[in-house]
């Protein structure tokens, strides 16, 4: 059963068309990777899928909710945005508390403890988010997306600014999420990590999905870099 169903989605900003007739399905329990060159439309698509932005045409259902109901949709999923922008004047601890309270979660402190331990934020939990490093802010954003253990995670460059230790820790956590039958939708440029994680991939280029399928099927014995270059450069590598 698809947890993400996007059908013929198009989006323009003024005269610039960013998405053109994008259709994709992501099945429950899949680890789905979306790749594409800079400016291909990855972040816009993720924002449309999560109800942060409305498409001009087409329909989107995410976690069984149309993206025209963004609050209900966001209640059901965890999102890591492109930029790490936790609240300026709240501490890391308070940011996670705010997230729990907005989502109406119970066991607030035990949930926070888990993620503070996971990201080693104990010494940083009472520092204002504005004063944290970029990596620490990214950890807060990831913890806030994971804290309610959603059935579907939508992540835009989740490994950015993380050092190799935490990249590995997050990677292992996400693998566990997929093993549990939950779904991960990830946009990333780091093809090596994606290759290790994703079952299914799609390549977006100039607002269109130019390649989509199970990684094993579309790689034709090659690696993800070749799939990516072939799709984007129109067979220059293949």
């Amino acid at each position, binding site marked *: 059963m698809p947890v993400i169903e996007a059908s013929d989605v198009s989006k323009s900003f003024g005269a610039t068309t960013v998405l053109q007739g994008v259709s994709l399905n992501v099945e429950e329990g899949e680890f789905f990777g979306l790749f594409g060159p800079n400016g291909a439309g990855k972040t816009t698509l993720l924002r449309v899928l999560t109800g942060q932005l409305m498409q001009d045409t087409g329909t989107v259902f995410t976690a069984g909710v149309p993206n025209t109901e963004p*609050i209900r949709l966001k209640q059901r999923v965890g999102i890591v945005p492109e930029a790490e922008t936790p*609240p300026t*004047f709240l501490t890391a601890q*308070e940011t996670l*508390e705010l*997230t729990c*309270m907005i989502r109406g979660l119970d066991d607030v402190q035990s949930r926070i403890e888990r993620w503070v331990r996971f990201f080693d934020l104990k010494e940083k939990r*009472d520092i204002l988010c504005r004063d944290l490093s970029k990596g620490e802010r990214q950890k807060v954003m990831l913890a*806030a997306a994971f804290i309610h253990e959603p059935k579907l995670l939508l992540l835009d460059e989740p490994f950015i600014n993380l050092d190799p230790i935490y990249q590995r820790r997050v990677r292992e956590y996400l693998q566990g999420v997929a093993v549990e039958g939950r779904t991960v939708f990830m946009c990333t440029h780091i093809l090596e990590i994606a290759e290790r994680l994703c079952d299914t991939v799609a390549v977006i280029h100039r607002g269109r999905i130019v390649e989509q399928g199970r990684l094993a099927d579309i790689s034709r014995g090659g690696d993800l870099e070749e799939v990516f270059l072939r799709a984007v450069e129109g067979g220059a590598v293949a």
Partner: protein
Amino acid sequence: MGQSLSLRLFKAMMKEEWRLHQSLVGPLGSGLFPAMIFVFTAFLAVVTPLLLSRMPTATILLMLHAASVAYGLFVGNFGSIGEHVMTRRLGQVSMVMQMPQTYPVSFRRMMAVFYAKDAVFYLLYSYIPLTLGIAVAAPMAGASFTGVAMLGLTTFLAFMVGMGLSFTLSAVSVRSRMAGLSLYMVLTGVVAMIHPMGIIGPECLMPSLGYWASKNPQGIGVSVAASIILASMGVTLMKEKYEIRQSRYSDSLLGVDRLLGFMGGLSTLVAKEWIEVRRSGALGPVVFSFSGHLLAVYLMSWVFERGVGVDLGFNVVFYSGFVGFMGVMTYSFITNLEHNEYLNVQPVSVDQVVKGKLAVYFALTAGVTALYVVGLGAVKHQMGLVPLGLLLAAATSVYVVGVTSYLTGLWTNTMFFDAGIILKFCVAVVPPLIVAEIAALIMPIMPAATYAVVAVSVILLLASVPILRGLERKWADASFSFVNTGQ
């Protein structure tokens, strides 16, 4: 090389400023703003002499120049922005100003260019349309076009002095809070020496005003020199390096949320807003600026009464009607504290945060409003009018700030540059306030006008209900990144 770099930076900043306005309010809204200033000023310039025929020219000039200094003081407070720019606290906003972080250009040069850009921008966007507006009324008032041009020049120079003062004060405050506070006290002392002590003339703070006493261009020269000296001082005092401090706070969110439990589903967001106001250091400035603006209304009429030598008969109820207008600035201040981009990925909508900010606005201003009305009642020996004043103050505050939040959401400061929004605001707010103020003024000679004040207050309160309810419909689908992306 150096000059050409500054010129290039200046051009880049001008383009940035213009495009920022366009992205927020559209090319039409952006272009209409100076047109609206022109029309509004022309209207006032035609009507004011008829209404205030007894007011001496000197008083009108004093008020115009004082307002320009105040405008400059408000605009020039960007000396403190350096810390935010250099310690990456502007969220996703990326501006030319941030180049010194990564490029071989000094922050002082950047601030000097920014200062020049703001001066030119406000000249083009405010003072030229304002001068042209006054020029329309010149033939009717028997004034020469040269005189109007000189008025435009002297008021702009008053603006520049205010901007320079504010810029220097904020640059000093970033280096040393104590030194900044001392300078603020010196400035307050100078203002007090002008009024009410009357030891020195207002020309000491507004040299360009001196031109009108004797038509001696010396005042203009002094103003130009003062503007340049103050701007140079501000630039020189700017810090090049900022340390990233790590501010630690004990957990407050849960405690405040519990205290606000009576607010139901809104308590968490109100708690967040309240903590942001406190930790951003805005609590004092918000309360003081709100009370300062209210007192300024009273002081201006006091100056006028002294200048003209007649009792205008402004009573407590009349002054109470201004609370809503002053509240707009306070609400705008509160909406500027945080970018809220984080909430884009949480199940929260813009209207909920607007409601949270409104709750904080009312919490911050209710006590000050009550003190103001009761205090005026005591000073003017009109305690009997205090209940009516409180009713009108509450009604205008709820209604005017409600309209503001409906029209501008979380982006009041920038959305008010949209002529269409300003027009809607004026249509919704000005007529009922004029009725209430006229009724308040004629109460002593026509007691039945009291009922008009009560009726307007009740109508404003009732009208506020659908406006506040409409926040959800208006803002539920907006993005918290609206200011950055225009979406």
